[in-house]
């Protein structure tokens, strides 16, 4: 199969075209701008014929996305950092109305102090918004995950919006070989969108109705159940995608974990560097592995329990910080492993794009190998 060299933003634009997305409301923000530039160019050239809406801010972008999806049209948008936070209020509306919007987030550290480089605090702030949250490790995965996300989100068992994260700059502006799947094959994998509700003046519907007290709690429980249903659906769709396109996906990725005593738990693009570290340490006969979380919501609790049941030391790599506690992924992994005797430590790395390389992870391995107690570290 022919591969094309492209960055993460362009990979997302290709996915938009392949999925037959009809509306893309947008507002530019570094490091997501090239996504908008690519689509704008295609729109002018006639290579993509959806609606491209230039709006005055991200709050309006998400509002327009909710409106167009509620009219029964497949919708996509992209943002980053402060922009994603500005959408936050309407993101709850999208998930509450159960509208399967798909969105790309090119993660970037939050201001202040201002930075343009990546860390995961922007996407993790969306934790409770009811969206499915995916992390990707390379640009190919950005393209593949967007296609899968539409299939998962639009499924009747799920009907929730999806947020796909890629690292700002590291993925969004870095070119890699990416295979563009065949359009017809994607159309077969992802059929035409069948909306659950269509806002149409001829047949008036009310979406996001008032629900007081018990009714409210009922709808919220349904949203939670839909998130849990998504765990199974993500696995199914990942497998089906593998059969058609040759790249299989699961909700977690286990890399040399089978006999591993020491396991790194990571999210996002730094997983590829950790794989290098794992290979390096395996050459030195150390039993090291990697567990990569592909989704953060739904949280694959049972899969983590199973994958790490025999590990002795677990290093959770957090590319984020919840001031006043520590890493954000760490407490969730630790709570999933309640009762497990393994030593679980937290490592805060790469905030605001601080360089993390092979050395960083070898240092983490050496430090934690000597530890007798769980600790929290910062790689300053």
């Amino acid at each position: 199969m022919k591969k094309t060299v492209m960055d993460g933003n362009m990979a997302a634009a290709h996915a938009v075209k392949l999925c037959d997305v009809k509306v893309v409301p947008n507002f530019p923000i570094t490091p997501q701008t090239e996504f908008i530039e690519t689509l704008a160019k295609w729109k002018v050239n006639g290579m993509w014929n959806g609606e491209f809406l230039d709006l005055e801010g991200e709050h309006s972008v998400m509002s327009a996305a909710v409106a167009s999806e509620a009219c029964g049209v497949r919708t996509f948008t992209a943002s980053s950092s402060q922009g994603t936070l500005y959408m936050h209020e309407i993101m709850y509306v999208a998930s509450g109305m159960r509208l399967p919007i798909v969105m790309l987030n090119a993660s970037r550290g939050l201001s202040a102090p201002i930075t343009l480089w990546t860390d995961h605090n922007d996407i993790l702030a969306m934790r409770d918004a009811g969206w499915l949250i995916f992390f990707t490790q390379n640009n190919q995965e950005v393209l593949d995950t967007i296609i899968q996300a539409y299939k998962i989100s639009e499924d009747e068992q799920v009907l929730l919006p999806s947020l796909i994260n890629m690292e700002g700059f590291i993925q969004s502006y870095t070119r890699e070989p990416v295979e563009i799947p065949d359009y017809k094959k994607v159309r077969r994998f992802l059929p035409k969108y069948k909306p659950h509700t269509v806002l149409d003046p001829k047949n008036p519907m009310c979406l996001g109705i008032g629900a007081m007290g018990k009714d409210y709690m009922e709808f919220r429980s349904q949203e939670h159940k839909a998130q849990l249903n998504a765990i199974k659906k993500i696995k199914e769709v990942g497998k089906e995608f593998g059969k058609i396109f040759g790249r299989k996906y699961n909700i977690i990725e286990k890399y040399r974990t089978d006999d591993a005593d020491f396991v790194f738990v990571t999210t996002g693009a730094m997983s590829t560097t950790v794989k290098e570290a794992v290979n390096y340490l395996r050459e030195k006969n150390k039993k090291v592995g990697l567990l990569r979380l592909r989704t953060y919501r739904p949280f694959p609790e049972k899969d983590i329990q199973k994958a790490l049941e025999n590990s002795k030391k677990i290093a959770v790599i957090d590319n984020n910080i919840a001031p006043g506690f520590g890493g954000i992924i760490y407490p969730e992994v630790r709570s999933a492993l309640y009762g497990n005797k393994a030593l679980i430590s937290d490592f805060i790395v790469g905030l605001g794009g601080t360089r993390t390389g092979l050395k960083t992870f070898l240092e983490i391995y050496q430090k934690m190998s000597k530890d007798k107690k769980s600790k929290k570290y910062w790689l300053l």
Partner: protein
Amino acid sequence: MIEEDKIKYKGKKGIPAMDANEAKIGKTGTWRIFKPVIHEEKCIKCRRCWLFCPDNAITIDKNGYPKINYEICKGCGICSNVCPVKTIEMVRDLHEED
């Protein structure tokens, strides 16, 4: 109380969407502190209360008397205020019927 695993997923029925004609916010009457009570003996069937009610909580029965739907009435007191013969009394609502 119910265990999480036992909550049933209702598919499309679990989505807060409905026909616009049926969509209503539910029993807003539970918000009420004062309750309007119509003393029919003095009522002159002028329908001012029916006309002024901001929530359409008042209907006219077949004898021409106004009737209040206490599931919707929030107890704003406008009907009592506009009544020309002052026959609508506002009484503290203890919500004993709930």
